[in-house]
């Protein structure tokens, strides 16, 4: 997207969102609670830019990545009353799903494990974009953890109907199987989880742009691709940051634009 087109688009958005931009300015001038947010490195201008962006993001970037994923999985476990839960993200280079987080018994042994997409329930959930409850197929997970899994519930993590990974629950507590109601609940939960992960990815991308090369996309999110709209927004923000650095007089406008863009995404 051309930067002029981008600025035009953002200007229109600013007009509509003028009230929110006012609020944003207040936040950037110090009203923004600083407690849970880490102090980003760099110049005061950069700090302000980051605060603006952070203010528009739903999640606290102060939360460590693992903590976020683990919180997500604790919820994933509890929402269907399971003994454990796992989260995989797609590695497109190897064409496999990789466990990036897990909770429950022997969870630490699962993290990093690769799950093939062929002839596996994870593969069906991921490729067919469908929630599936079944008896376990992949006994290599049992072998690695030393735990016998009785049943498994797997939901794809979908962003705009594109799968980025899976979230799964194992061993239904006090019952033989996961129920159809569990499947329905998990579908909704997986949708939420996918958006949280996507949001986290965007946040890291924004940080990377604003902080330069200092921030690195964590391995957990490396497999998550930007949507076209996200990539467009990031391009515009990148251009705005460059413009702000080259022309300090443009900085106030750039701050406004970045804030509005972060909100639009």
């Amino acid at each position, binding site marked *: 997207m051309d930067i002029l087109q981008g600025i035009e688009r953002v200007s229109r958005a600013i007009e509509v969102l003028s009230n929110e931009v006012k609020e944003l300015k207040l936040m950037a001038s110090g009203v923004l609670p600083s407690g849970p947010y880490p102090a980003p490195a760099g110049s005061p201008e950069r700090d302000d830019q980051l605060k603006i962006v952070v203010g528009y993001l739903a999640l606290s970037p102060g939360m460590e990545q693992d903590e976020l994923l683990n919180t997500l999985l604790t919820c994933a476990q509890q929402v269907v009353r399971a003994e454990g839960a796992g989260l995989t993200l797609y590695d497109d280079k190897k064409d496999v799903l990789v466990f990036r987080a897990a909770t429950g018994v022997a969870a630490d042994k699962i993290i990093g494990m690769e799950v093939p997409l*062929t*002839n596996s329930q994870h593969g*069906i959930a991921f490729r067919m974009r469908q929630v599936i409850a079944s*008896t376990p197929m992949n006994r290599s997970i049992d072998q690695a953890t030393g735990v016998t899994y009785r049943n498994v519930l797997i939901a794809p993590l979908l962003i*705009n109907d594109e799968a980025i990974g899976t979230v799964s629950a194992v061993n239904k507590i006090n019952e033989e*199987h996961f129920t*159809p109601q569990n*499947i*329905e609940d998990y*579908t909704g939960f997986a949708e939420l989880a996918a958006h949280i992960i996507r949001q986290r990815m965007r946040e890291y991308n924004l940080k990377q742009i604003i902080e330069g090369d200092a921030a690195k996309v964590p391995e957990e999110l490396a497999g998550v691709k930007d949507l076209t709209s996200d990539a467009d927004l990031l391009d515009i923000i990148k251009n705005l940051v460059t413009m702000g650095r080259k022309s300090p007089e443009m900085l106030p406008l750039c701050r406004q634009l970045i804030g509005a863009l972060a909100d639009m995404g």
Partner: protein
Amino acid sequence: MTFEQLIDRDKILKLMEQGTGNGVKVGILDSGVDFTHPALSGAVHRSFEVREFQGNFTALEAPGTDVLGHGTMCAGVIHKIAPEAELYNIKTLDERGQNSPAKVICGIECAIAQGLHVLNLSLVSLNMSRNTIVDMLYWVEKAYYNGMILVAATDNKQKRGFPGDYSSVIAVDFQHFEDFKSFNYYPGKTVEMEAKGVYVEAPFPGNTYISTTCTSIACPHVAGMVARLLSSMPGLTPFQVKTLLMAARSNGQNP
């Protein structure tokens, strides 16, 4: 007089019980079928694969090896319900498990060319463009007017999605039923049927079995049931089949 009183449900259920699928061609448009699985021995009549050549898709006669296990599960359910039906494997997923509406359209075209009576589509797309929806509609309607009964899975959560949303396709959701002859039918709803789909035992590649719950596994229960009906009463049109299904539905009893 009610609709149910016009048509004898018991007679329809008896037709289903008597039917074996004999003489009925059922297509499984999916990830392929592992025809070496003992549970599918001799069931797969022909196999096709949709492949891309210079931007165009074409269905070629090929082994149609299953890449996911999904198609094998569906074929296993149909074969169990209608053991004498001739199964046609139409593989649209490539080795990386990728599918596309264009490949599905090509698969439907292949099903029409092969003169299939029933086509199982245990797949759903929620984000097809308007143009693609129109493109696919042409082929779905063509199949319908050729007398083919198309059965498609619905989305787990949103209970919608194509191709199930077309009125000429029977969209299926899963429900807990003991056997394939028990099902719900909702005339006028986008998702017309609920069929057995909770912890269904089905064959899986590698000479194994999987017990699974999903809309994909409910869909072949309807396809198999329709194959039974067609073998008992050859020549039923899609409209007649739908009418019989509605009359035999489990949720229409005990008014």
